[in-house]
């Protein structure tokens, strides 16, 4: 129900931030994520950052899924 896209925080000015995905930028509110840091990937929903995407966790998920794929290949 909730379209939220990960976009990188490029700059911030108090509670306003500029986020980017593949060269496309938009201004969003950081009211719901006041501690967001430049360089973080933020989930953007309806013009607000609602959460951060953890790069390490993302990598771990990828590993897990590669395992599934490899296991199939090994058969």
């Amino acid at each position, binding site marked *: 129900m909730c379209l939220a896209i990960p976009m990188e925080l490029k700059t911030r000015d108090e509670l306003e931030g500029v986020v980017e*995905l593949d060269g496309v930028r938009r201004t969003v509110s950081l009211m719901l994520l006041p501690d967001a840091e430049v360089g973080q990937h933020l989930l953007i929903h*309806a013009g607000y950052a609602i959460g951060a995407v953890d790069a390490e966790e993302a990598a771990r998920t990828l590993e897990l899924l590669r395992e599934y794929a490899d296991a199939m290949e090994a058969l």
Partner: protein
Amino acid sequence: MRPGLPDHLLLAHGAGGRLTRELVEGTFLPALDNQFLRPLSDAAVLPELPAGRPALTTDAFVVDPPIFPGGTLGHLSICGTVNDLSMAGARPLWLTWALILEEGAPGELIRTCVDGARQAACEAGVQVVAGDTKVVPRGKGDRIYAVSTGLGVVPPDRDIGDHRMQEGDVILASGPLGDHGATIMACRHDLGSETLQSDCAPLAGLVEALLSSGVDVHSLHDPTRGGLVAVTNEAAGRSGLRQSLDERSIPLRAEVRAVCEVLGLDPLGLASEGRLIAWVAQDHGTRALDALRAHPLGLGAAIVGRVEALPAGGSPVILTTSVGGTRPLDLLSGSDLPRIC
């Protein structure tokens, strides 16, 4: 400021008197000048048509914003009409250009659009031979609307259309899709991008290159309003044949994908204004690809699908998804609104 070009348009600029004449002779005529337009008479009397069947098309242009990265309403209004003729296999010759302007519209905006039209006509090798200008009161229009009618000729040896489509035909796209639509949506929703711009371009040259390469071209369509989804559904409807597309092969720029993700849009439903979709004979796919890619407007061409028989009760347009599933592609019901869900 050029004589005849006001800061802001008045109703009097459309009244047919002195101001109208100043506008037409000071701004429109110098930009679009040719022997048929110059007399500014009631109708342009043209030479006899070259051999073949005449083709006629008309289009209205109301794009908002009228100036966008990569183009203007003026440029678009010429390209759109030229491209409709090209898709029928016609060589575009002569266009009309009628403007409905809004009282208060900035003169600079008009000039930029006129320049765009001039540039497009020059690129396309066509002449604008007749025009009209009306001005409506403030609030009754949206700065500038344009209507263009185009006349061309289909050479005697040519027969392009959905009636020629056959099972086994290869479907190609001449380049990445949705650039124009994504650019407009980005403008409307305050999304910035350094690289995203409209793909608006006249396609007559690309079409001639394809046709003269010896490829057996059955049908051509430009995926404008409604995008690839619309043209394939229309083609399926007219031909009675299934259009089977492969999501992995459809070229899309990363910026276009990004705009679609952010706004919740389907890139396959976005307009392109400088691309064509071609249906060619089964064994001519690679030759068609090479012919397109050899032309500056076809550098990003790709084979995107195939025509198949339509099973009873089956979807007319089917997409093999990037993960190997399938889904039907049906016509968008309702306008292209960004989702939040």
